[in-house]
């Protein structure tokens, strides 16, 4: 039996296009708003006070390979956008979904991706309310590109990269660098003695509990491309503070450490897709840690450092043997070392 694949005709805006949307996208993602099938979604007021704020974000996903240990491009495209909303203290509500598919893409795989999306949307309590599908000739795109745009309802105000102050503690929600290391391992066929999975996950459930407990959070950020190093540097610069990190406290899985050793990377620079960094007020440090650790994907959460005034706009890494160095922003293409 021949495998069904996406054809250029399915991007024609006509019969075949409608069939693809109905059989794959609507089948899994349909809801009251989406099924109206209008040019734009009309969102009914959703228990919002007039003073409530809305968070709005967008992201495109072009990961390779599209199926990786711990996730796929579908899960990633929902997590990525919902996490961006969650990091601003907003509950993810409505997402748009724009998909660019290469001719010849297997329908079975497309459906697998959409199913992943649905699962992750449910975790966030969000839904797809509008979308677009384009099919491009073979060779014009690398399998599938996904864009998601999200609207969220702000539940906690005042979170900002500019609000971090001396005395705050820096917490990471779990071990770092998993997504980058897993993608590298999958892409380059590095076989490990134990299986390494991406951290790809939705963060709203944890964030919701932190907000409910009224934890004094100055800022939150999911450490995606550029890793923890990029988040900390951005915070140090925008808040004009020094962030001091105790290297020994930073949780890093042994497989990730091993990959970093083999390829000459630093886990601080590797991407994460379900790990976030928090700057928390001193009074709530333990409480915040306990809440995060009560979740399965937060059980390795740790306090990794503190905010001081020593070297403003810099991130300092402190070793266990008493030396210090700056942790800078990652630069250029991540390449393996030579010898």
């Amino acid at each position: 039996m021949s495998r069904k694949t996406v054809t250029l005709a399915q991007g024609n805006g006509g019969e075949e296009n409608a069939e693809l949307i109905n059989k794959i996208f609507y089948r899994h993602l349909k809801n009251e708003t989406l099924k109206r099938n209008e040019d734009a979604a009309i969102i009914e007021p959703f228990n919002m006070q007039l003073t409530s704020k809305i968070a709005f974000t967008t992201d495109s996903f072009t990961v390779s390979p599209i199926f990786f240990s711990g996730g796929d491009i579908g899960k990633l495209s929902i997590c990525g956008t919902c996490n961006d909303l969650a990091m601003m203290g907003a509950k993810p509500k409505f997402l748009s979904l724009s998909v660019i598919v290469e001719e010849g893409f297997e329908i079975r795989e497309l459906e697998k991706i959409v199913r992943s999306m649905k699962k992750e949307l449910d975790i966030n309590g969000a839904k797809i309310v509008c979308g677009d599908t384009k099919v491009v000739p073979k060779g014009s795109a690398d399998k599938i590109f996904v864009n998601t745009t999200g609207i969220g309802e702000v539940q906690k105000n005042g979170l900002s990269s500019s609000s971090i102050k001396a005395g705050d503690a820096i917490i990471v929600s779990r071990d770092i660098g998993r997504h980058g290391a897993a993608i590298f391992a999958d892409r380059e066929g590095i076989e490990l003695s134990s299986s390494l999975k991406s951290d790809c996950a939705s963060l709203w459930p944890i964030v919701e509990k932190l907000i409910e407990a009224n934890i004094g959070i100055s800022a939150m950020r999911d450490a995606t491309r550029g890793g923890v190093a990029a988040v900390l540097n951005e915070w140090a610069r925008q808040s004009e503070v020094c962030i001091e990190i105790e290297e020994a406290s930073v949780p890093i899985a042994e497989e990730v450490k091993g990959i970093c050793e083999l390829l000459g990377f630093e886990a601080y620079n590797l991407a994460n897709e379900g790990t976030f960094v928090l700057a928390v007020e001193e009074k709530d440090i333990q409480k915040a840690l306990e809440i995060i650790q009560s979740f399965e994907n937060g059980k390795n959460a740790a306090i990794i450092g503190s905010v001081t005034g020593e070297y403003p706009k810099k991130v300092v890494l402190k070793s266990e043997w008493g030396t210090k160095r700056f942790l800078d922003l990652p630069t250029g293409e991540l390449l393996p070392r030579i010898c």
Partner: protein
Amino acid sequence: MELKLKDLYDGFRDPKAIKSFASLIEKETEKLDTPINIMEVCGGHTHTIMKYGLPQLLPEKINFIHGPGCPVCIMPKERIDHAYILAMQEDVILVTLGDMIKVPGSKGSLQNARAKGADVRFVYSPLDTVKIALDNPDKKILFFAIGFETTTPMTAALIDTAIKRGIKNLFFHINHVTVPEVMKELIDSRDIHVNSYDNRIDAFIGPAHVSVIAGSKIYEVFPERYNKPVVVSGFEPVDVMESVYMLVRQFVQNRCELEIQYKRSVTKEGNIAAQKMIDRYFEKRELFKWRGIGNIPKSALKLKEEFSYLDAEKIYEDILPKDEIEDHKLCICGDILRGIAKPNECSVFGTVCKPSSPLGSCMVSSEGACAAYYKYGGLI
């Protein structure tokens, strides 16, 4: 026994061991009247020293001088141009290792060539090139081979595999260099720009990976003929601290010897099978130009005459330029590679010359001294 990834680093970053060596070195160094300038030949050591902040733990009398041991840093522009020109050939896939694709030649880097449509790929292991060759029978695969004694056996193994499997579309541009000759050059030679008779090197930390292959014997000449002690060292912070301690002890006890710190893998004779494989396919070049240092006799390898049918330098002789190209006037990579200057003494360090826009090769490679200073050197 299964090797776990944890075994790669566990134990060699033990804070107690590092602190304990720091205190032993401190005590021993007090017995010395003059400072010791230790050249760590290999860029891997430079990175360990900078990344783990080891100078912060050492007395002022211990001074590290960074050496020419980075295969990317020492590649002259004309040979990078070779790679660029070869990559731009229509029917060619150029394959090389990691950082090499970022180094600028006079025409640009391999990254630039890739942006212009050239098929440039990097591999983790040279043997991965076999698959590329088999998957692309209508293309010529050119392996641009770089590195010291450490990576040479892998290139030899690739040649061996290509011949045994009858792969007809794989060719080689060989740029393998050898460590002892450049170390001798740093002590022996006189450069027109700098008086390198005044080199400040008192002792060497020798790269262990090189000696895993070539044995520690390649360094015997340094204590014997040049009166410079050598300790062959591993790359973890505990390894480097122990090696510094071993060197300091030699000075305190008035000894000058070749010692092995990295006994877990290095022997005097090295890996004989790997050496035989290298000897089967390679022979010494008369001269090889090292970027910033100049021509050094017998310091590099080339394919033996009988394998010239695999040699891209010969096959593409007509399109590969032979003239030497000067480095950028403001760049002092040459002095840095000679151990005469430190990266932060360069006028363009961290301003015009950064990892994202490197002027000189020492800033390009992750093994380069300038890159190490840029990345880790801020507090030191």
